[in-house]
Structures are given as structure tokens and as C-alpha cells.
């Protein structure tokens, strides 16, 4: 007999590899959370995912709770809701949580929890506003929106292993720091944006798309990063014909959401007026002139034929680009081996 767990009166089998939070979510039961991220595992810091478990005195964090056979879990008792409301109100009491203005309005996990719990106004305010860190090339840090969940830090240290971000200070002074608490722009940060991807709120924003679109205004297009041969999976957030933001696709191989600075922020070339729109042929006087595809391809084919007839096919070598997808690389070697007739074919990533 498979082991089972009861969540809100419904019985689910489990195999011991998943937490109560994961089982609940897979079965359509919403348990709010803030510091938990599937890629980073349980952190048990925010205490928003607490649930009531029969036979256990204290509320338990569902993100770290492993099920046992016949465990009975209640996800939204009065006690649970009261505790969650208190936790969220405590978070709202400090900082600057201004959804009306925030770029993450509509894609914010704190906002989602506030909405779910029906907190119309923060129950109490203690402090507001903290200084922005505007020093970095791509990332804008707003400590006033930070909830100290630690996801950015886990990403920076354990996922991309850049070791820039950490928690500094302690207690209510706890803050996310770069290196020795210097502005991000002066730190060793390489702006990969992993922290932005993992941030559940609007504490880490992208300068490139500030106030360009609310999350619901963009359509999401999945694609492969064109930069290198790794083939990272991207999710483009597109408004009209304009890319507003690039995200790594969580859970998709090979990058599992991670991206480098180029993949995440280097998309401006698409809109560059310097991009070639037609083939160019260099004239005898050294100048380039625009040409049509047929003319250009005929010229290249004829030149190849001429070289082969004069010097043999081995006078030609091909180097394909590491940014090419596998299919293009395959076609390239096919062209050289079968059509041109040489084995002089290589790939730039090998050199």
C-alpha cells in the first residue's frame, strides 16, 4: 500500500521525495510562500507557508515538512491564517511596498500573498523608505522592497557561484550586501542577473526595462539564446514588437533558469540600425554595395567552383560557428563533405 497524506481533507499518495508544499501545489492546493523557490529548496525563513499538522504543537513550514504516512495537514485554519497575516503585516510594516508604482506589480509573490490573505492596508507601519543602489550597469537594488528571503544570495553563491551577495549585519538590520557592503556597481558582480530572476518581489529590478511594461502587458515567447552553443532556454517578454525583458526558463535544460549577462541583457543588437539587411558585395575599388540574395549566392558558388577546379576541394576549409544550433552545424559539414568534397571542416568552439 502506498503511503498517503491528507491535505485539507483530500488524500494523496506520496513517495517520500517531495515536501508537503510540493505535494499540495502539484494537486492544486495553494499554500503561499515567499522564501521558497523550487530550484533553491526550502529555507523556512519567511514562515508564510506554515500549516497545521495534527499531533504537532507548533505550526510547521510546509516547504521543509516531509510527509509521514497518514499525516493530516490543514492549510487554512483560523490559526494558520492569523499567523500568516501577522507575518505578512510584519513585512509590510517596514520598507516601501508601493505596488502602484512597482514594475513587478502583477508578478510579485508578496503581492500575491497579500491579495490572498485579504490585507487591504498594512496593519501597522514602523519605518519606510531606504536608499536605492543605482550604481550597477543593469540591476537596480531597492532595499525598501527587500524581504530578506535570501533567494538572491542562494542563487549568487550556490547556483552561479559568483560569491558576491550575502547577508550582512543581523536582526532587523539584516541586509543583502555586495562584497564588503559596497555599491553593486563597484563590487565584483558580473551582472548575470541570477538574483533578479530569483527575487520574489521588486527589490531587484532591471534598469533596461524600468517602467516599460507591467508584467501583464507582455507576451512570453520561449526561445534559445543565440549567443553560444550551450543553448540556454530563454523566455522573452515582448510588448508589441519590442523585447522588454529576458528570463531564463525555470526547470528547462540546460540552464534551469540561469543565464549569463549576455543572454539576459545583451539583446539590443536586434534593434541596431547597424544590422545588415541585405547581402553586400565588395567591388573591385574596395567599396561594398548592396546586392540581392541570388546574386550574392551565385557569386559565392562560382568562386567555390573556380577554386575547386583550379586547386582541388582541399583548398577550401569550413569553420562553423559555435552559436549555431546542431542542425545548422550538421548542414555545414554535409555541405563541405558531400558538396564541396573535403574533410576540412571544423568548429570554432574546438579551437
Amino acid at each position, binding site marked *: 500500500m502506498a503511503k498517503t497524506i491528507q491535505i485539507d481533507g483530500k488524500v494523496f499518495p506520496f513517495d517520500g521525495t517531495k515536501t508537503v508544499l510540493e505535494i499540495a501545489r502539484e494537486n492544486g492546493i495553494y499554500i503561499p510562500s515567499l522564501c521558497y523557490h523550487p530550484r533553491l529548496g*526550502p*529555507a*523556512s*525563513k*519567511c*514562515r*508564510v507557508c*506554515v500549516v497545521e499538522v495534527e499531533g504537532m*504543537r*507548533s*505550526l510547521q*513550514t510546509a516547504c*521543509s515538512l516531509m510527509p509521514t504516512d497518514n499525516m493530516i495537514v490543514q492549510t487554512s485554519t483560523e490559526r494558520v491564517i*492569523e*499567523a500568516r497575516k*501577522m*507575518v505578512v503585516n*510584519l*513585512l509590510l*510594516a*517596514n520598507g516601501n511596498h508601493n505596488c502602484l508604482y512597482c514594475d513587478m506589480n502583477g508578478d510579485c509573490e508578496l503581492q500575491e500573498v497579500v491579495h490572498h490573505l485579504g490585507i487591504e492596508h498594512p*496593519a*501597522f507601519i*514602523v519605518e519606510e523608505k531606504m536608499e536605492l543602489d543605482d550604481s550597477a550597469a543593469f540591476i537596480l537594488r531597492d532595499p525598501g522592497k527587500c*524581504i*530578506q528571503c535570501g533567494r538572491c544570495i542562494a542563487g549568487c*553563491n550556490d547556483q552561479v557561484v559568483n*560569491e*558576491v*551577495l*550575502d*547577508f*550582512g*549585519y*543581523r*536582526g*532587523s*538590520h*539584516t541586509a543583502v*550586501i*555586495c*562584497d*564588503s*557592503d559596497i555599491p553593486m556597481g563597484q563590487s*565584483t558582480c558580473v551582472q548575470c542577473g541570477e538574483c533578479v530572476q530569483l527575487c520574489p518581489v521588486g527589490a531587484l529590478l532591471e534598469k533596461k526595462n524600468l517602467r516599460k511594461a507591467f508584467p501583464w502587458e507582455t507576451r512570453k515567447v520561449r526561445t534559445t539564446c543565440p549567443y553560444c552553443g550551450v543553448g540556454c532556454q530563454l523566455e522573452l517578454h515582448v510588448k508589441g514588437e519590442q523585447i522588454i525583458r529576458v528570463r531564463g526558463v525555470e526547470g528547462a535544460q540546460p540552464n534551469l533558469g540561469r543565464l549569463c549577462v549576455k543572454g539576459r541583457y545583451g539583446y539590443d543588437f536586434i534593434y541596431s540600425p547597424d544590422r545588415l539587411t541585405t547581402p553586400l558585395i565588395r567591388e573591385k575599388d574596395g567599396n561594398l554595395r548592396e546586392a540581392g540574395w541570388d546574386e550574392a549566392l551565385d557569386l559565392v558558388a562560382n568562386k567555390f567552383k573556380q577554386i575547386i577546379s583550379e586547386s582541388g576541394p582541399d583548398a577550401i576549409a569550413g569553420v562553423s560557428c559555435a552559436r549555431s544550433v546542431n542542425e545548422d552545424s550538421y548542414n555545414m559539414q554535409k555541405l563541405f563533405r558531400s558538396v564541396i568534397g573535403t574533410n576540412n571542416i571544423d568548429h570554432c568552439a574546438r579551437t
Partner: protein
Amino acid sequence: MKEKTREKINTIIKKYPEKQSAVMPVMQLLQKENKNHLNLAGMKDAARAAGLGLNRVYGIATYYTLFNTKPVGKYHLQVDTCVPGFLHGADKIVRHLEKKLGISVGETTKDKLFTLSTVQDLASCATGPVIQVNDRYYENMTPAKTDKLIESLKKGKYPESDTSMNIVSKSNILLNDRTQKDCTGLAFYKKNGGYRALKKAMTMEPEQIIDEVKESQIRGRGGAGFPAGMKWSFLPKNDTRPVYLICNADEGEPGTFKDRQIMEFNPHLVVEGIAISARAIKAAKAFIYIRGEFGWIADILEKAIEEAKKDGQLSHVDILVHRGGGSYVCGDETAQIESLEGMRGNPRVKPPFPANFGLYGCPTVVNNVETLANVPYIVEKGAAAYRKIGNPNNHGPKIYGISGHVNKPGVYEYPLGTKLDELLKAAGGVKGTLKGVIVGGLSVAILTAKEAKNLVLDYDSCQKAGTALGSGGIIVINDTVSIPELALRTIEFYHHESCGQCVPCREGSHVITAKLRGLLAGKGKMEDIDLILHLCKNIKGLTLCPTGEAFSVPIQAMITKYRKEFEALVK
């Protein structure tokens, strides 16, 4: 970096099973060698030495209070203003120092000679007010003594410190006769029967020792009162990983100053207790995690370990003294393990428990100093003899620390189950009229004078009385004390010490502090009192470690039992 410093760093690193554990000792060394200031260069050196990122080292440096990331004066004067210090008049000393030095708290004199700070709990509860000057304690301070101290320091000389304290040992098991010369030495200890228990233990099978300790029913003296023998028996059987023993000497619960009495004056008892326990749980490496403020006590322990080693007592275990960095939360066993691994003192999520997954992911036992100091007696005299001391289910001697408004504050080693009235009498009686008493260190519920009458001081009786024996730190409060002021001091301690990891503790302590400050400043509203109670009710049991409970329980008790005093503050 000087060659000598590099050699010292290498020596430190070699002491630890894993390099990253050396990060704090290296930081401490580099701070000491740079006029008590850990600058950026020092942090970078420490990071390189321990193979860590600068971010991590900066995170550590700003987590622990003993690292000065900004320059300080030649003499860093730190006055303990936490609850016991407050009851003993610490504020008067602070004001006196401010006036005398012409600076405010947090400032340094122009000649860079003195920096004045207030700190939270130095475990000098019965000998307050206390001023810590760099790594020395000056206890039992008065304004006149403070003047003398400053004058002497101006001449570059540390004066002798007045360490006198009231000590009564009825049980005579844990405390030593400190008036005897060389009472901390090996010869003195052995002359009085020391290391006989270890000799016996070495002839016993490890399981036999565990059984004996189990049968003694000794309950852990750190505060929770969990049976120590049972804790040992949770270790996995037939496991190939090394087992570690950690002696928890991070005594930081306000009102508690018992462990330092054993370590400072009877260090071999601690060493023998560790040696026996290490044999029982088959640990080849043991650590004494001592709070960094107790620097001189750490030296005493190191000397005792060296003596015992030379005497051939420690052939089976290597004991390393590890100095903490100034953090109350590191008294929690999983935070202590994190700290020992060279991290910020953030408690871990449990399960897994240390018995299965502790230091370096290995089976680990963390026992309090006083618990381990009981072990030699249990092994030598047997569990049955031990059980004769105290009450059923509450056996053995207990060091009660009494501070606050009594005529003879000090340490009192009495059997568990002694009546509070008897102890207060032994402590010279209450100064003035008793208003309330906190019997288990600051984190337990205060008892009113009426509730405290006839209280029996053992784990079960205190629980029945709606409080807890905790660490046995008894804070006596007379009717000159305002309970809202006491509550503010209490929450300020936890607010200062909260590790900041989980929301209810980090933000809850912050909001309660703000609201209590508001009330005491005459800016509070009636609903603030209920808000604090609402927070306390919900924070209890909701935090990642027991710290949330440690402040929500006492604050809730103070407000519910003395509510009128809080309401009177609302204008």
C-alpha cells in the same frame, strides 16, 4: 602580512578538521594585531586563508558583535545595560562615563584613547555593573571605581579587577573553593579526587557510560532540561562518520553566569566531563564553544587541557577551545554548529537533528558546560547516588545564579528542587519589597511576588507554576522597577540578538521594540498594548528557533501580569 602572522594563521587552520572553521579565529587574530580593528585588508586576508569569499567574511564580521569593522579607541569601554546590569545600576555608570569622557555612547574621544559602547549581557549578572575594557572585565563598578579605572588606563595601565562575589556551595560538586591558591591547577584537582572518574570510565564500555548517565536521569542544564543520556542515545549506531562533541560554553542568557564559575575556577572538572562524555559517545574530537567575551576563561581552559594532555588524561580525545564572536543565538545548538563551521550564527531547520547531521554533516552532541561537569560525579559515584540529590525526575546539583535586588547576589549551588524562598534567604534576602522574579533567565515568564511564594526550583515545578527553570538564572525585581521599562530592556536584548533569519523574530522584535519605546516616550496608544500581545501570541512557536518564544513569552507575561503599568503610560 607579517611572516609571524602568517605562521599563526597556519597554526590556527591546522587545528580544525575543515579550513572554513578557522575563519573566525583568524579574523579575531587579525583584529587583535590591528589595534582592535578588523579592516578590509584583514577581512580579505581572512577570506583567502579560509578559502571563502569576501562577501561571506563581511557577513560574519557584521553579524558578530566582537568584530570592530570601524576603528575603535585604544580602550573600548563596553557597559552591559541588559536587564541584570540595569537592575544593578549600569545606566548610572554609562552617564558617568559620558560625562567624564565628554562623549556619547558610540563615540570615541578625540585622543582616540576611549570608545564608549553599551552592550547586551556580559554574564556578569551578580557582579554588575560591569565594564568590559577590550577583553577584560571590570565588575562591581561604582562611579568612584570607574574614575580610578579611567585614570589608570590613561596612564596605560590595566588596574586589578574586583571580582568578588557571593558563593555558596551546598552540594559541593560543581563549584570549587576559589580562595585556594592554584585551585585551577591539575595538582589541586587531582589531590581532591579529580580524574578518578575518567580513570574508571576508561575501564568501562562506552555503552555502559551512556547507560549510567541515562539512569542518573540528569537533565540538560542549558535551559531546556532535556535528558542528557537520551540525547546521547540518539546517535546513530554502526555509523562510519566521525562523532563530534561540543561543549556549549556560550553562556549568554541574561541572568545566567553559572558556567563561567565552573570554567574559570574548576576548569579540570569541565575537561574531565568532556573526556568521559567523549569516550561514551566515541568522539575523538571535542570542541568547547565559549563566548568570545570570556577570553581569559578560554585561556584558563586551554591551560587545563594542556596540563591534562601532558598528564596522559586525553589520549582518546582532542579538545579544542573555540571562541565565539558575540551572539546570543549561537547558544542554540544548531546555530553553534553553523558558527563553528565558519558561518553566521543562523540556526538550522530541524530535522535533521545534530545527532544525525551536525558538525560537518556528522553525528554531533552538544551539551552544556554544567551538564558535562555533572558527568564525573555520576560516573564515579553511580547513577543511584546521583539520583539521591534533588527531587524525582529533577536530580542533581544546580548552580542557581541570583542577580538583581537581593542583598547578596551571587552563585548558589544547591540541589535541584530547592525552594526559592530558601535561596533568597541564602542570598541575604530581597532588597526592598519583592515585585516579581524571573527564575530561569530572561526568556521565561516573570512571576509576581505572590506567584513566586513557595515556588520549588526544579524543571517540573517551575513548568507547573507557569514559568520555566531554564538556566537557573534568577533575577529578583523589587518595587522600584517599572515593568514597562523592564519589558523594553528585555525586548531590546532580543532585538539586538535576533539573527534576522526568519520574519517573526526579526520583524516582530523590531516592531515590539518600537511600540514599547513609543509607550515609554508617552506617544503610545492603548491599541499598541494589544498589538504587542497579538504579536507575542502569534510569534510563540512560529519562529525557526526558540528565540521568538524567548521574547514573546516574557513580554506577554509582563504585560498581562502588570498591564495597569503599561496602560498608565498612555496619555
